[in-house]
């Protein structure tokens, strides 16, 4: 009794799972790496350098903003690293180095930090950053280098041979001149991180196994696109048209890594499915009827805006209240009103 003990008093629970924000983000970075490896293989080391520039810029802006605003530093949560990677992933490998820096500024400062930082932004920072640079310098980003278009992977110039991406021919209504296996593995033109559906699916599987994301959004998104493109093949073979639509362009990258962004996707199970379907519908709509070649990024950005609404109207069923209960309550109310 004489002992003077200092015991902490805090509210339960007194234990916590080891998983924290940082470990989650680290898992996402791991899941994103296979796509980067393929990008280096397909487009040369420039893809890696471009990604590093983008990551460095994102982390710098995150640090600098919080420092200037005298807010606690948040670069330790590693979310800025992911934003940087994703920005680079949706740019062609021959993009001038200053472009991702500007995109990173827009993504981190305007889209993310001005709204209060991680968890508070309502637009996907990487996609918004990309949309901003695409709108500002469309000519610079229109063409992607052809796969292995460099003399060697050590060619760092941005003057490589360029070629139309599979997405461009799909937009024109015809099947691209690439084998389906090359499409799947990523030996195609396109933004540097989106080309290999295989690498992205491996990353996605890792995220699902580690329970970082659940498959509701990616599956409902990809399925919606699959069904729609299968039904409306624009005069092509249904199956082929569907497969090229799934593998070409940014669908896998978008569905697995962008649409599942925590801050900008719903948290309710029903809401996640609605969100995925919405993304799928808009993607196909833009691809078919829009002037842009690719619809993934705008589809996701549009759905981002609806997230709060979706969450609000997809409250899970209340424990102890079954659907029958609700119906009978409604009925008795109507009876009372009469």
């Amino acid at each position, binding site marked *: 009794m004489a002992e003077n003990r200092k*015991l902490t008093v805090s509210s*339960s*629970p007194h*234990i916590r799972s080891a998983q924290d924000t940082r470990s*989650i983000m680290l898992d996402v970075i791991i899941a994103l790496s296979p796509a980067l490896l393929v990008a280096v293989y397909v487009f040369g080391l420039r893809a890696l350098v471009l990604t590093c520039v983008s990551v460095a810029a994102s982390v710098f802006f995150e640090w600098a903003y919080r420092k200037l605003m005298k807010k606690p530093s948040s670069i330790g949560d590693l979310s800025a690293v992911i934003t940087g990677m994703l920005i680079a992933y949706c740019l062609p490998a021959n993009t001038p180095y200053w472009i991702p820096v500007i995109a990173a500024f827009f993504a981190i400062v305007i889209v993310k930090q001005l709204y209060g930082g*991680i968890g508070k932004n309502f637009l996907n920072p990487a996609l918004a950053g990309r949309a901003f640079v695409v709108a500002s310098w469309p000519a610079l980003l229109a063409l992607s280098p052809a796969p292995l278009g460099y003399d060697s992977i050590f060619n760092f110039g941005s003057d490589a041979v360029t070629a139309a991406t599979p997405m461009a021919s799909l937009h024109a209504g015809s099947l691209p001149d690439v084998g389906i296996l090359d499409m799947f593995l990523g030996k195609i033109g396109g933004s540097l991180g989106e080309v290999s559906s295989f690498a992205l699916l491996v990353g996605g599987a890792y995220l699902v196994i580690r329970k970082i994301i659940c498959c509701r959004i990616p599956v409902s998104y990809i399925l919606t696109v699959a069904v729609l493109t299968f039904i409306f093949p624009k005069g092509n073979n249904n199956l082929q048209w569907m497969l090229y639509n799934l593998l070409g362009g940014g669908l896998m990258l978008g569905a697995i890594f962008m649409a599942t962004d925590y801050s900008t996707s719903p948290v309710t199970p029903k809401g996640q499915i609605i969100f995925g379907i919405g993304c799928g519908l808009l993607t196909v709509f833009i691809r078919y009827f829009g002037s842009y070649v690719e619809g993934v990024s705008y589809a996701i950005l549009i759905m981002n805006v609806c997230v709060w609404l979706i969450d609000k109207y997809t409250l899970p069923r209340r*424990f102890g209240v079954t659907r029958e209960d609700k119906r009978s309550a409604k009925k008795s109310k109507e009876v009372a009103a009469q």
Partner: protein
Amino acid sequence: MSFKFHGGVHPPDKKSPADKTQVIPLNPPSLVVIPMSLHIGAPCRPAVKVGDMVKLGQKIGDSDAPVSAPIHATVSGKVTAVEPRLTPAGTMVTSVVIENDGMDTPCETMVPHSEEELSDPDAIVALIREAGIVGMGGATFPTAFKITSGKGKVDTVIINGAECEPYITSDYRTMLEHPEEVLGGIRLIMKACGVSRAIFAIEDNKADAIALLKSKNSENSGIDILPLKTLYPQGAEKQLIKTVTGLEVPPGGLPAAVGCAVFNCFTAYSVYRAAYEGRPAIERVVTVAGSAMEQPKNYLVRVGTPLEYVFEQAGGFIKEPHKVIMGGPMMGVAVHDLSVPVIKGTNALLAFCEDETRTVENPTCIRCGKCVEVCPMNLLPLYMYMYEQKDDYAGMERNRLTDCIECGACAYNCPGRLHLTHSFRAGKAKIAARAAAEKARAEATKAATTV
């Protein structure tokens, strides 16, 4: 056949090695402090005064209120004080302090009940009340009242042997060491409730207890021993009922609304002892564990024993504890003063040295939805938290903050390290305070208009 509730978490169970060793009866201390409120409901009036000599098991406090349970002396000796003392909950409650004479002289009332008496349901209820038996799992709801209030509505008795909190093995050891007594207690509860069926639900991480109980259970006893998947909070009343029967207790309702009554397995054991040994609820098995203890073990501890005495007898702290918890790590209360006594619902005392709560300086919600994924009440903890922080009552109500059972699963799982469960406790208090204020205002205006 069993059903599944939504969500749940798998915290590391840490039940070993305390689960391996026999329960050790702890020598009663030289002084016990017995609060006159060891249960939910009306507190008891002390029936003794300073200077009185009391015997072991003698009634020292009672109340006429229906929701209450009498309190007995847990040692024999002299009453040295009847005064407010600190309780584990942090409140001051009138307590009877008894100086132990070391004799354990039993009270004359501690006699076994006759078989004849035990065939009458009302007599069983009466003896359960007289023995001061309450929900021994920690809820401490008076058992006799639970039985009488459920009469006619309850057709299924569920015995909670889930013990889903990490570290705790007190029920498990009781099942292993006293299987017949536990089953006997269940039969008495069934008789008292007037039902022919009971389901004894046990998490499947206690396989040997399940096997043992099955072997001791006679076929026509009406008791079903049901293994449950190990998942926290399997032992929470509403979740247990859902798993066992598939039924959901409606919001704000009692288990009787779906025909169920849930009793803890230690409660059943206590009923047995009260009936066949005449021993009232004066002691319980307590798991003493945590990183500040060398040897986690189970002790049979008298109610009223100061915590510091329990820890001392259990070998003392090997390292300076940072936090001491009464109950499990998910739902237990942290105590700051070790002079507070063990109470009827104390199933564990845990002393931790390092901070296992992994608190961070700036808890930040990243909207990962992991709280939603695990909430067993189908709630959206992140939104409840947001509205609670903003004092937005409409938002709290829309998100059904009052449905929260404070199980802690969301906060356990939150990577942003938000103090979710704490916020919901605060939110409930705010809502209650506002409702009270509104009622008072309405009454005041009513009074003003009638004048």
